């Protein structure tokens, strides 16, 4: 499969037109500095190519903030209920950085490990990722510590790497990728053999994730470690909501007179009430326990049970944190602890 071609920046507009004409909803990073997010776009003019990271990840394309699943209606003594079928419009997620593209593997592992999630899977199936290699990073980026990299192809169907201001190297990686390129084959020319490496950002590795995964179970009982790290944590959900791999959700019924819908919406393990039992018992009563859960889940439980790392090193959680909880730093610190 893996085929490399060149597309000029000025040709992207035409490609977008063809994708739109081909029935795709194109979603890409747009907005002003400091407020860049994935939104539906119709032209590459609005799309940002120069940013380090969007505020929110593009996971909403597969896993929206909220989504209705079922409707019901009370009538006399009857209850009528009906499913609301998933909405999975063919979508191109354009300009996702390699870390975001890599996050699909984690999401997919969660939503399909025992049974297929009827609302996630069709969306994933109908989504084509046109990735965009990173030409710059910042101190929060640590993809190279978690098995990724600024030019990593995992998860992308097509990966674009800007070679200079004018052209992109397009690596066509999957069948899905092939079909979106196939919408406008004339825009792609043969690659000239230029390596993408020179264009890529340099992201230093901060820790070895395998070592961390191996060590975490022994760190679990070290309460002081977790307490110390999380002392300044506020217990909000910002990290989870901006995270491309966080997949916790809540299920809620909304009612109006005698009709209602059942909705699934995001939730966060950072919230104190996340694990509150009906008995009023809370197994994770303290913030330090919730912080530990967050780290363990991503770096221990998921690798062990789903064989996939729960973190892609995008750094969003740390950038968004109101109190500068820096995941890369804290995991690196954990890696340093002698057990």
């Amino acid at each position, binding site marked *: 499969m893996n085929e490399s071609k060149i597309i000029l920046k000025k040709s992207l507009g035409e490609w977008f037109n063809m994708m739109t004409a081909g029935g795709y909803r194109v979603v890409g990073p747009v907005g002003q500095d400091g407020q860049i997010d994935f939104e539906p776009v119709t032209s590459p003019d609005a799309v940002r190519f120069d940013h380090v990271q969007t505020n929110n990840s593009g996971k909403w394309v597969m896993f929206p903030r909220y989504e209705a699943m079922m409707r019901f209606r009370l009538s006399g003594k009857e209850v009528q209920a009906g499913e609301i079928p998933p909405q999975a419009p063919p979508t191109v997620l354009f300009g996702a950085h390699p870390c975001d593209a890599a996050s699909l593997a984690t999401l997919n592992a969660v939503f399909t490990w025992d049974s297929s999630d009827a609302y996630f899977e069709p969306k994933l199936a109908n989504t084509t990722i046109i990735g965009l290699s990173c030409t710059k990073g910042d101190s929060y980026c640590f993809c190279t510590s978690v098995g990724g990299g600024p030019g990593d192809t995992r998860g992308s169907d097509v990966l674009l790497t800007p070679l200079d201001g004018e052209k992109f190297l397009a690596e066509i990686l999957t069948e899905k990728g092939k079909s979106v390129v196939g919408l406008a084959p004339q825009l792609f020319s043969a690659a000239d053999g230029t390596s993408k490496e020179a264009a890529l950002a340099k992201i230093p590795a901060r820790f070895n994730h395998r070592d961390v995964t191996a060590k975490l179970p022994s760190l679990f009982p070290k309460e002081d470690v977790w307490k110390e790290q999380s002392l300044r944590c506020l217990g909000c959900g910002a990290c989870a909501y901006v995270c491309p791999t966080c997949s916790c959700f809540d299920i809620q019924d909304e009612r109006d007179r005698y009709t209602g*819908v059942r909705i699934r919406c995001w939730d966060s393990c950072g919230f104190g009430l996340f694990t509150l039992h009906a008995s009023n018992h809370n197994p994770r009563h303290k913030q330090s326990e919730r912080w530990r859960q967050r780290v363990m889940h991503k770096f221990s439980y998921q690798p062990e049970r789903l064989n996939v790392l729960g973190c892609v090193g995008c750094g969003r959680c740390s950038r968004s944190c109101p109190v500068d909880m820096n995941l890369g730093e804290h995991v690196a610190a954990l890696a340093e602890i002698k057990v």
Partner: protein
Amino acid sequence: MAEFEPKVVAFVCNWCTYAGADLTGTSRMKYATNVRMIRLPCTGRIDFMLLLQAFGHGADGIIVSGCHPGDCHYSAGNFHARRRWMLFRELLDFAGIDLRRVHFSWVSAAEGAKWAELVNDVVNQVRALGPYDEFPKRLNRQSLEQLCSVEVGR
């Protein structure tokens, strides 16, 4: 198409406005049918969130009414309510919510005529403004009935 008929929700205290509306009835004065009253013991009991709930459940206009200052059955509930409304109104206005849809009034147990007049005025005003579709709804009742698509959050 029939003329739009607004839905107006009235939050009233038991001792003055509810009784005043009773007097409207005993006096056989007529007013628009569009109003639905929620009876509470006192304006002091009326949580500002109830007003948002009313809009969220399809109200196009809201009336809040209780005893005149000094007449509160509980002596001071309406004074507390008044302060709350002062701030709440400023906030709604600031947020771009149309205050022509939220009306505050003192209607005493003797003011049956005032109640009728108030309801008619509010209903007419809100009818002219049209349905409050701008305000997000808890659920879109119609679209559900038709099993139409439901909004999905990004």
